[in-house]
């Protein structure tokens, strides 16, 4: 099996540094997702791992071999692109076998690998078609098939689902996850879609401004975000942020005073520190219904029914926060309510460094 190790990788376009000293370690068989907003450098990092972009510093190791100076085809990788990048003049079979023909594999070996991948991806009936005659989802499967036949050590996906419609995206997501489970290959996958990242990854690297903010398992990332950015980027609806000041073991948010001892923080926080308290909508409930936590008074602003649950928006002093409520219960919510903030699951960030306490 194959791991990837990137160390102190830097990359700049002229004066613009797009990757700052990146360190990333992907274990064999791991499904690592690079997640971040556009322009964060995630695709550049993937290109660097693939060898498609030159880098300015650092090393890239695949399966224990230093591949920093190697051509893409010498790195033992296969790649799936956002635009699918199928060769339009070749049939599906031609597309899938092109790389194998370049490598001068025997005709029998090529035929058996293509048949295997086509069977796995339900492409057998489409083998003699041209990409232009296929739907978006079929093209995507051909692109994955073209990667699979390589029997590569490492699979790289560059936003493979972002050109598909919502329904197809969900289907393909499941299919990719199934492939990973069945074949157990190492995958590095780029996306800006946090749901894709949460559902697929064994570990997610959240990137911003050419740096990795946090690299952790999806649960860890969601429950204990390392920075304010990660906390805000991961999770929908987004985490509520309440800025305040620490005084005598409490977080003072305007007229509110919330006890700090309920918040899971690593160490003591000095008095007078400006902090931001982060509480996810599902950790806010109605105190009158017995929801656990610190009780605050709030005014109901409006309700957003989302089907499985209803998002309630409330004003607490100058701040607006959202809470995830049961739809039936939410219908009778109006005017002044008592909200319970479950601080055991809250996150506390330093307002200046934006790092978690």
């Amino acid at each position, binding site marked *: 099996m194959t791991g990837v190790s990137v160390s102190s990788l830097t990359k700049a376009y002229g004066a613009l540094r797009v990757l700052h000293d990146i360190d990333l370690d992907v274990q064999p068989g791991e499904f690592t997702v690079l997640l971040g907003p556009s322009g964060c450098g995630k695709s550049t990092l993937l290109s660097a791992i693939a060898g498609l972009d030159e880098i300015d510093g650092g090393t890239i190791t695949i399966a224990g071999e230093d591949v920093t100076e190697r*051509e893409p*085809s010498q790195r033992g990788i296969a790649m799936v692109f*956002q*635009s699918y*990048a*199928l*060769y339009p003049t070749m049939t599906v079979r031609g597309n899938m076998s*092109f*790389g194998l023909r*370049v490598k001068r594999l025997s005709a029998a070996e090529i035929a058996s690998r293509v048949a295997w991948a086509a069977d796995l991806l339900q492409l057998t009936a489409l083998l003699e078609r041209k990409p232009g005659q296929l739907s978006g989802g079929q093209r995507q499967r051909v692109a994955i098939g073209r990667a699979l036949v390589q029997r590569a050590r490492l699979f790289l996906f560059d936003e493979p689902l972002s050109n598909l419609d919502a329904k197809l995206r969900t289907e393909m997501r499941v299919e990719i996850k199934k492939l990973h489970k069945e074949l157990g290959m190492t995958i590095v996958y780029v996306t800006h879609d946090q749901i894709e990242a949460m559902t697929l990854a064994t570990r997610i690297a959240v990137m911003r401004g050419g740096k990795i903010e946090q690299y952790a398992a999806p649960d860890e990332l969601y429950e204990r975000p390392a920075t304010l950015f990660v906390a805000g980027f991961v999770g929908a609806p987004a985490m509520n942020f309440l800025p305040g000041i620490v005084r005598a073991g409490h977080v003072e948010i305007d007229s509110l005073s919330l006890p700090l001892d309920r918040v899971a923080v690593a160490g003591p926080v000095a008095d007078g520190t400006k902090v931001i308290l982060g509480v996810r909508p599902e950790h806010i409930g109605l105190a009158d219904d017995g929801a656990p936590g610190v009780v605050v008074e709030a005014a109901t602003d409006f309700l957003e029914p989302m089907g499985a649950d209803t998002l309630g928006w409330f004003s607490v002093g100058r701040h607006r926060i959202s809470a995830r409520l049961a739809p039936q219960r939410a219908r009778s919510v109006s005017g002044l309510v008592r909200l319970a903030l479950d601080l055991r699951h809250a996150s506390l960030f330093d307002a200046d460094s934006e790092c978690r306490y």
Partner: protein
Amino acid sequence: MRRNAKWLSAARIGLYAFLVISAAFFLLPLYVMLVTSLKGMPEIREGNMLSLPHAPTVAAWVKAWSSACTGLSCNGIQVGFLNSLKILFPSVTMSIAVGAVTGYALSLWRPRGAAWLFGILMAVAFVPYQVFLFPLVRMFSYVGLNSSLPGIIVVHTIFGLPTMTLIFRNYFAGIPLELIKAARVDGAGFWRIFGAIMLPMAVPIIVVAIILQVTGIWNDFIFGLVFAGRENFPMTVQLNNIVNSTQGEREYNVDMAATILTALVPLGVYFISGRWFVRGIAAGAVKG
């Protein structure tokens, strides 16, 4: 709605009137050439250019093709036709082959000053050929290429290069970079990507290039005159020799037949490739 329809029909009438008048304007000379070529000399001397021939004859065509005098030899314009073909095929093939490769290479190379570079390249396509004639003749004499078939082929290839490079570069630059990246991951190199992926995608622009080069090279006069040598004079030069020969009476019917024969190849290209040809003109707008 109704006013709109009325305005439209008025515009239509104007448009058709314009088209009919322009068609007549361009077709009249062709008509005169055709009827004159089918007349005998006595009838031509009567001076009625527009009248239909009393006794149509193809004698002038036969003479133009096989026995009209071009300078000293009297074998008709067929010699020039064959010479033109000998010049045409290798020149078109070479100029397109080289232009496709250079255009492909330049489409991959995107330096900072690319816009300037291609601007300059485009400007070069406008430099009058006459400027190069004398230096080229000296250079070709030096390497022994002057007045030879390879010489004229090299000249056509060189002078076709700016236009060919530009149209291929622009076409290849429109192909998504991810395709080339995918091919690199698949292990294909520069030539493999060119041959297996880019060239098959370039069929439409190759057709355009063929149209441009066939008409351009077939219609060339000055390069043929200067670089081909007496043995290899193309059809255009031979035509000039027939039409401008000063001995004896001017045989207008033979001149007309020879002219139409010479124009037949580009004319055929126009008719066969209609739609493509318009695209060719658009793509070759740089050629001037």
